[in-house]
């Protein structure tokens, strides 16, 4: 490629850049206008802050909770529960998928059960789990695992079985064992599937944790939301929801960063 770029190409690059900037600016503007309108309407008394709260109150509460350390305590607990639930759910799910791939017989046997479990809203199981496992962190974590594990098993298993037959045949011509086939082709070619499952699972683990916390907890973001709702402190509810949104977005971006790192060959 030459260093000299034609004027047309320059214009083209400029056009792409300015379009990108316009999209970003609009995104930010929407947020600002939304917040400003919310604050303004609250101050003018057009909306009832008892029901809707308003950004400045939420911010004040946020500062308050940050200063007394309460925020970090609650966020820390929820994040820990989510991370553990996410990791265990994903790992167990992948492990079960490996077993199913290994034995076609098992896969066929468990297929109808998985289909039923997959269509069942797992949050319906939360009360049972909490009674069985206990009304504490462990119950919440198991709830989070239950929510994500079935989807993981199904997606990853489908990923495993859709590996190109000829690629497996290629390894067989080299004399590969089943374990080598798993390690050299099946797992690496399923990395994109596994990563997209991770992205889904982050959200699902949060669903499990929040539902679990709604039901039993004495701490955590879910607890703050339920507590705030019960005592009609909408500032607290809104703040918790905002924080939840921000943290889960950060976690999602974390997975996206891992994806970028391990998928070098795709670029």
């Amino acid at each position, binding site marked *: 490629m030459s260093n000299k770029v034609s004027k047309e190409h320059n214009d083209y690059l400029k056009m792409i850049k300015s379009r990108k900037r316009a999209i970003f600016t609009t995104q930010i503007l929407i947020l600002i206008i939304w917040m400003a309108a919310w604050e303004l309407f609250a101050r003018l008394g057009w909306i009832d802050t008892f029901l809707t709260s308003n950004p400045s109150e939420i911010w004040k509460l946020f500062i308050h909770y940050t200063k007394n350390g309460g925020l970090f305590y609650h966020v820390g607990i929820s994040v820990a529960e989510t991370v553990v639930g996410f990791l265990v759910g994903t790992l167990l799910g992948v492990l079960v998928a490996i077993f199913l791939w290994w034995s076609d017989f098992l896969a066929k046997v468990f297929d109808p059960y998985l289909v039923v479990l997959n269509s069942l809203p797992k949050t319906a199981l939360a009360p049972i789990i909490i009674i069985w496992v206990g009304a504490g962190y462990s119950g919440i974590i198991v709830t989070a695992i239950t929510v994500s594990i079935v989807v993981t098993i199904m997606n990853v298993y489908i990923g495993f079985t859709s590996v190109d037959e*000829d*690629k497996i045949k*290629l390894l067989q*011509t*080299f*004399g*590969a064992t089943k374990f080598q086939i798993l390690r050299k082709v099946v797992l690496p*070619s399923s990395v994109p599937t596994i990563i997209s499952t991770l992205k889904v699972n982050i959200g699902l683990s949060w669903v499990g944790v929040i539902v679990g916390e709604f039901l039993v907890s004495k701490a955590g973001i879910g607890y703050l939301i339920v507590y705030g709702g019960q005592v009609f402190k909408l500032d607290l509810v809104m703040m918790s929801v905002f924080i939840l949104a921000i943290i889960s977005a950060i976690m999602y971006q974390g997975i996206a960063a891992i994806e970028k790192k391990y998928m*070098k060959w795709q670029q």
Partner: protein
Amino acid sequence: MEEKKVVEIKNVGMTYHTLDGETEAIKDISLDIYHGEIVVLVGPSGSGKSTLLSIIAGLINPSKGEVLVNEKKIGGHNKEIGYMFQRDHLFEWRTILQNVLLGLEIQEKISEETKEYANKLLETYGLGEFKNSYPRQLSGGMRQRAALIRTLVIKPDLLLLDEPFSALDYQTRLAIADEVGIILKKEKKTALMVTHDIAEAISMADRVVVLSNRPATVKDIIPIALSCPNGVKTPLKCREAPEFRYYFNKIWKELDVHV
């Protein structure tokens, strides 16, 4: 040249079973392949050519008969055999060098010596500067060349080539077939290749084996003797040989194609 038998195919038959019934893919095939020769199988679509290759590779067991490779009956995987597919099947997540080393890794034969051999082959066949590239950065022809090197590094006694060029565009196909033909002769490999392309078969083969319609039997074995121009025996040059047309017409008639 024709001294040692590398492959002996003895009365091999193969029947597939499905819920809908059974299909006899191969009826009775016997064929010997000698050291250093290139034998090309041609036959109508669905005549069990690929099935025969899979049997020789030890991937499936024949219903009847047996196959000997180097006088040993094949059972299970056969490490003396290299298999080349229609598509290159390079792993996208591995660099070219890592792809080439795949067979050695599986057979746990990675050593300084074998790595050096892999590097040497890559250098010799023009992929030296691409060994740290990923497959998607290479052209179709280069990828197929890398796939050939992947099968060559395990130093197989026999190469099985299953329509290895049919996924390439016509120009690349001519060029790569020429190269592979030269490489096989230079490395003194014994090879059994399947193709649909009669011209490709004649230009590369020492002998062409024509199979019948399903269930397959050997219809004819045609030794190819081309007087290539200026004595340059490369597949592409040999297409100019005066006998080429004669062989083409003979095989075409044998194939007995009805559309």
